[in-house]
């Protein structure tokens, strides 16, 4: 690392003088290198995103712009039935999704990382086993669990019956009270390997002397964890939290597979991703373009804004550690 940094200064300068000497005739050459990527990226990624912002400020009748709307589409989303109810409900579900995931998936991931840290034989196998579901498409995970949790033919309830817990055998995905928690648990089942691996890597980076010093000072295992290990995990906690947040607020495939595009039963699992799809392509009506674009902009501002704030918060926490 140090070596690379020392070398990079003269190297950069050399590249620069070389570049200057061949500056004039190279524009055509540069174009061959840059244009394909530039075109592809600008047409299919940048242009649609900029258009979404643009579209959100206009009134639409089908695919025809009928006038400038200002913030009209945004106001409609917050005040016109059924969006005024669905938007906040979906937002609330996303917030619960995120909270539940932090509480269950990331806490369990940390626990597994801690337990596996000094684990002997079988550690590699266990790590591989915990991360395997993450290789499966979220859509497949959703469909698989909807079969496993089926109230009549599903193995989960059959298992509960077999061990005498038949009163626990609920119609998991058919009940408005259990559906969202089940979605959160299934999502955690798929992703728990990710925080485990992140925390394992972070734990491996903590010098052993810190733990020894804590033990010499007579700290209990819990005190050592709370006062030494946990603060040193701040960077990893930050990364895991922000990525969990972005992932949860963009959730689509898993929920679609388990609850359809309307977040059944009775919208109890509806999330922003599903709502966005419905407003744009299922039930948006003639104003679909304007409203779904406005929703896209709101989601972007919220997700991007919170991610930035959280990142800078964790940076400050980290700096206080040093």
């Amino acid at each position: 690392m140090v070596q690379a940094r020392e070398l990079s200064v003269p190297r950069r300068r050399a590249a620069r003088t070389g570049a200057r000497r061949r500056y004039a005739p190279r524009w055509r050459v540069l174009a061959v290198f840059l244009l394909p990527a530039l075109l592809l990226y600008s047409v299919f990624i940048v242009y649609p995103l900029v258009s979404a912002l643009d579209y959100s400020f206009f009134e639409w009748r089908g695919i025809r712009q009928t006038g400038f709307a200002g913030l009209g589409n945004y106001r409609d989303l917050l005040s016109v039935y059924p969006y005024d109810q669905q938007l906040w409900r979906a937002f609330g579900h996303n917030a619960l999704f995120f909270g539940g995931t932090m509480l269950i998936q990331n806490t369990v991931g940390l626990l597994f990382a801690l337990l596996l840290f000094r684990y002997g034989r079988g550690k590699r196998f266990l790590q591989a086993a915990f991360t395997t579901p993450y290789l499966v498409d979220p859509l497949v995970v959703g469909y698989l669990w909807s079969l496993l949790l089926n109230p009549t033919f599903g193995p989960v309830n059959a298992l509960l019956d077999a061990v005498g817990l038949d009163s626990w055998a609920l119609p998991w995905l058919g009940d408005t009270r259990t559906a969202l928690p089940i979605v959160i648990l299934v999502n955690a089942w798929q992703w728990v390997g990710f925080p485990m691996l992140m925390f394992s890597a972070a734990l491996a980076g903590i010098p052993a002397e810190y733990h020894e010093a804590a033990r010499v000072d007579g700290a209990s295992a819990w005190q050592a964890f709370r006062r030494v290990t946990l603060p040193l995990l701040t960077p990893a906690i930050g990364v895991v939290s922000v990525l969990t947040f972005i992932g949860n607020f963009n959730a689509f495939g898993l929920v679609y597979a388990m609850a359809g595009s309307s977040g059944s039963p009775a919208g109890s699992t509806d999330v922003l991703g599903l709502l966005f799809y419905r407003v744009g392509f299922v039930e948006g009506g003639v104003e679909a373009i304007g409203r779904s674009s406005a929703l896209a902009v709101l989601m972007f501002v919220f997700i991007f804004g919170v991610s930035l704030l959280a990142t800078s918060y964790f940076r400050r926490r980290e700096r206080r550690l040093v």
Partner: protein
Amino acid sequence: MTSARRAPGRVAVHLLLWGYAVVALLPLVVMLLNSLRPTGEIFTAPLRLPTSPTLHSYLKVWTDASFSTYFLNSLIVTGGAVLIGTAVSALAAYPLARHDFFGSRFLGAYFLAGLMLPIRLGLVPIFYLMDSMGLIDSLLGLTLLYAASGVPFCVFVLSAFYRSLPGELDEAARLDGAGEFRIFGQIMLPLVRPALASVTLFQFVPLWHEFLYPLVLLRSDEKFTIPRGLSQFFGEYTTDWSALFAGLVLATAPLFVLFVLATKQIIAGLTAGMSK
């Protein structure tokens, strides 16, 4: 702490970890086992080893439910997109990483911005853009879109790799009279091969799983990719559970195979790059 007090704790740790390993793997095992059993058997006993394993459901899913078509489409779209995305990014990252020209910094930042943009939020404009180009319900349209979505990540990773190569390499070649294209093709590209392998894999997985774009952009059954086909299939075969499980296995298997093959390939590529 005495060993007597630690022993039950250790047992609890073992139980917890190995117990959870069962929870993590059992659903996938059940998926595989039930795909080998007839539906009637699954309905009477959801959790049982297959008495006489049969590949009947796979045959049905592969031909009747046109999974062979979905599979081929996924392969064309994902493979094509990864090839195009990696190729154009390998080209673009080279001058961005190794030359200073007017606007090079701006262009670098422009590509980098794509890493932070939630590109799916452009879905509605993408739909009308594709519509205006006649690319709705078209594998070509989906391929180009997928390829474009990989560009920011590839440019970012490949630039870092190009930058880490010693400057003397291209200077010497230039003194010997080699043009930019020869330097790129014969010196730079072979040296970043390990990076090409890993960006290929990292693009492949999310694109193979992509569901929202095909849900909106594809219309006809013969154009469906696996995830899109799977959602169709789950609506049609609701009561044929054996087929449903077989469909899930078929949708999952390619990535398991790829992962097993590719981890070896990537590790080999990385170590080969390091020994030079």
